[in-house]
């Protein structure tokens, strides 16, 4: 069953927006060590309470999950209920008599 992760109440995170950005940052030794050139290549994203953060770098995701700062969810398989055809019952038409007094 696939899992997803959301930001817990009152939390906010900022992390590399994609794998390429994460790789560049790791090779630089951290965000504060990026060269001027590399800084132009990397992108970041910010997620707040209730938003999906499944694409967070795995080491931080594991740590924050343990601390309860993010919440794990599972995608339940979608099950279609079988359609049951109810027999169509025609109600007899009853004509109302006009009251002529």
């Amino acid at each position: 069953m696939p899992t997803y992760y959301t930001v817990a109440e009152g939390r906010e995170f900022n992390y590399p927006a994609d794998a390429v950005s994460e790789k560049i940052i790791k090779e630089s030794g951290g965000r504060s060590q990026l060269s001027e050139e590399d800084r132009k290549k990397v992108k970041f994203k910010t997620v707040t309470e209730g938003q999906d953060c499944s694409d967070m770098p795995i080491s931080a995701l594991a740590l924050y999950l343990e601390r309860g700062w993010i919440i794990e969810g599972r995608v339940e398989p979608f099950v279609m209920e079988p359609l049951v055809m109810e027999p169509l019952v025609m109600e007899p038409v009853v004509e109302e008599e006009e009251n002529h007094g």
Partner: protein
Amino acid sequence: MAKYAGKDFSVFLVDGYNLIASLSESASMGKESITQQTNPFGIGSEGHSPIGLIKGMLAVGGGFFDAATDALHNIVADVTGFTRIVSAAMEGNTIGKHFMGFEGAIDSKYEVTDKRDGLTMANVSYLVSGDVNEGIIVQDLAAFTASWDTKTGGAGATDAPVDYSVDPGQRVIPITSNSMAAASVVTCPIAHGLTTGQIILISGVITSSPTINGQRTVTVLSSTTFSVPVDTSLGAAGTGGTFVLCSTVAGGVGYLHCTAFAITNLVYKIMHSPDDITYAALITFTTLTAIGKERKTVSGTIDRYLSSQGTNTGAGSVTVFSGLCRN
């Protein structure tokens, strides 16, 4: 050992006003544990027991008397009934250096002294009925005309995040050895003072295979032993080395002073990170719309790297100072 002088004392903020230019002779700040004398009769030496109270001390000697707006006289001449927030940076106005913070119902003694041959001076002493904290400058007192973020300052930038593992105020704990085990057990010759889940930076361990050097999350086993998630069961045990803390677990206090404000509003946050890659908001201060100050407490874990992030709205300039004190 670093030494500092009067020229390094560059920030003295009271409620968002920088009074450093008013100081000329001396300033002293400190804290004292209140004790009660406990030695009974018949004992030849004094005994004292702490009663769990910390007293803050703050005094300015020989400040220039200056009745201009935002100068010493106007900020401190009202001597009673005020809750003030004070931050003082004795090691320089530099990110990563230490500062002291005070908050509380501060009553002060204020006296102006006139001399026949000399400038008129003022002395101020505060009686702090509140909190005293020591911490690290996360944002030096600086003006910004646009939003900023110190974690993306770049290599060699002075506006960089603060790395707690290199804080000179940290105690370096020695390691005796680490065992061969699925989770290697580290033994220290003294109490390590750690809590399970805390992150440390180990260095200098030799012969361990694989090495346990690096940033590790600990599981505490006793007051002098803990394990790290490194499988050395098929390798070799190690000896020697030291560690320092990368994270703290008892929360802390953030200080923010805004000394000049000419924009629409400012959202200011202190962020923290275990790895300088992913950052989490640690403290979000109340949105500023004028000169002001705030002291805000935070509980739980504070990670290794601290950064300063300001989001400006409106054209103009804003000047802020911020620091964080770990408990």
